[in-house]
């Protein structure tokens, strides 16, 4: 045991780890928001609700079908992503020519509906979800205790983020996507089915949110309101980072998670508000955000 700035290392690194975990979720969710925003030009307010649906999907698969964590990690994003595709085809498609604010309003309404339905069915209290057996326990690193599951969440989140970045910035499919973001009409003229790409992009973004939900299930309880509080913080993260860049969303997410964790150590009262305060400061000194394109 040793101390840093008068704080026992155990506490410091513990909070830092927690910060990294939160950061993983901020990164995954703001990444999804950025991907959707890039293609559909709307802010997906239902993102938090879809994250919650992911966690519930994992819970329900286990309760009713005995399907465990590892399968849920694949099944839940696909199922929830499919509902996202449905939402895009049924609702969002019709808003394409309108002010992007209508997309925000519609997804806000959807988020309320989804949260309300889950509250009616499962109440407001959290439901427990066990850490999968193979990831139980942890390692003593000397300066701190590292639970295996938490390490896994950070690694998986980083991997998914980087893979998404690679897919969008470095592959042919990604180049179509970026081109369609810039000029959908021209890309259509080249024979690429842009509306289908838009739909799939939304489904993919929603799937990312659901994946984050499955990963969160064993850490936080599974509860209907788990998404709505988180999504507001993620909005602040998105304002700080700006939605112009995929890598920007990832970096900002992890960084702010760590900053929040550190605040918990040194100034616990401010830990729930620190990200909003940072947002206010960033707006004062760099209104476009760190990675934003100036509007």
């Amino acid at each position, binding site marked *: 045991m040793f101390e840093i700035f008068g704080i026992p290392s155990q506490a410091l690194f513990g909070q830092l780890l927690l910060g990294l975990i939160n950061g993983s979720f901020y990164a995954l969710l703001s990444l999804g928001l950025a991907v959707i925003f890039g293609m559909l030009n709307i802010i997906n307010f239902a993102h938090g609700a879809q994250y919650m649906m992911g966690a519930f999907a994992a819970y329900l698969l286990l309760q009713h079908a005995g399907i465990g964590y590892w399968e849920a990690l694949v099944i839940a994003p696909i199922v929830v992503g499919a509902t996202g595709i449905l939402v895009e085809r049924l609702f969002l498609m019709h808003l394409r020519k309108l002010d992007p604010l209508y997309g925000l309003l519609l997804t806000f309404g959807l988020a*309320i*509906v989804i949260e309300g339905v889950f509250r009616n069915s499962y109440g407001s209290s959290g439901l427990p979800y066990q850490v999968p057996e193979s990831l139980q326990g942890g390692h003593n690193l000397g300066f701190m205790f590292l639970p295996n599951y938490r390490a896994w969440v950070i690694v998986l989140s980083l991997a998914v983020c980087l893979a998404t970045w690679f897919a969008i910035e470095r592959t042919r499919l990604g180049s179509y996507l970026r081109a369609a973001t810039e000029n959908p009409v021209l890309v259509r003229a080249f024979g690429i089915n842009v509306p289908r790409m838009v739909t799939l992009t939304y489904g993919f973004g929603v799937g990312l949110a659901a994946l984050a939900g499955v990963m969160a299930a064993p850490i936080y309880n599974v509860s209907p309101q788990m998404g709505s509080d988180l999504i*507001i*913080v993620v909005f*602040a993260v998105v304002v700080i980072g700006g939605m112009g860049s995929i890598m920007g969303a990832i970096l900002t997410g992890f960084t702010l998670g760590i900053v929040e964790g550190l605040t918990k150590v040194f100034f616990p009262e401010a830990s*729930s*508000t620190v990200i909003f305060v940072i*947002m206010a400061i960033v*707006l004062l000194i760099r209104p476009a955000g760190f990675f934003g394109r100036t*509007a």
Partner: protein
Amino acid sequence: MESVLDPPVLARRRDTARSLGVAFAVTVALLIVAPFVIYPIFLMKALCFALFACAFNLLIGYVGLVSFGHAMFFGWASYLTAHAAKVWGLPPELAILIGTATAAVLGLVAGGLAIRRQGIYFAMITLALAQMMFFFALQAKFTGGEDGIQGVPRGRLFGLFDLNGEMTMYLFILVVVVAGLLLIYRIINSPFGEVLTAIRENEQRAISLGYNVERYKLVAFVLSATLAGLAGSLKALVFQLASLTDVHWTMSGDVLLMTLLGGLGTVFGPVVGAFLVVAMQSYLAPFGQWVLVIQGAIFVVCVLAFRRGIVGELAHALRVRL
């Protein structure tokens, strides 16, 4: 191009003024009779929310700025009024003044930050700032945390009128809310209001015409926040309660729904929307969380098929301004 003095324009203006005047007179007459038929506390609640929604509409309907954070003005004004009346023992008029002033200051700070970005960013910033103020309310000692501030005394207005009488309270609320609505009507029909509309229609153009757009947006934001605060202060006295519900983001969603349902950018829409939503929340209360689901569904329907709102559609059908 039509000059303002062209006869058709003048005639249209007179028509508009007449249709609005008639609608206004009918509404006020109904509201004076209403407490003999309908439960006064319900009417007072609806009136407070009508003012709240109209204040909100000033921003969304006339400047085109969508705030997702108006709960912070409503809720914090409500807290300060409750605290001033209960702990400091101030008379209701001063308590309301303090609450409203709090909202004005908050509006200045939040508005100053939020107008630095446009469109959806503006919405996200206001939401995030409101969430921050929610956490402050949760942590501050004087707000009473989960319990809120209960048993707020209504007191005697100007030392003369005992507001504990239900009818006295109702008339007081009615007078203040109608005054607030008239003020909003005056603002949107002033040269200042015309500039706001110009900014909504074409911000770049307004800038090129030499208007200091940021200044106009900020003033509109502060006005909207202040009047939302007035509504929150009144609400604290009506229910003798200020609580976390008032600062929660769902409150921002409620006021957005009222305005959207009634009709964005219409004079009477938010009033109608407020009455409908408050009625729905009261009468559907036994259904618990399903109220939320219904509200969300109304949002979806409004956005997809009904973007003018009830009053907007009506005005469109009758070809008048309402």
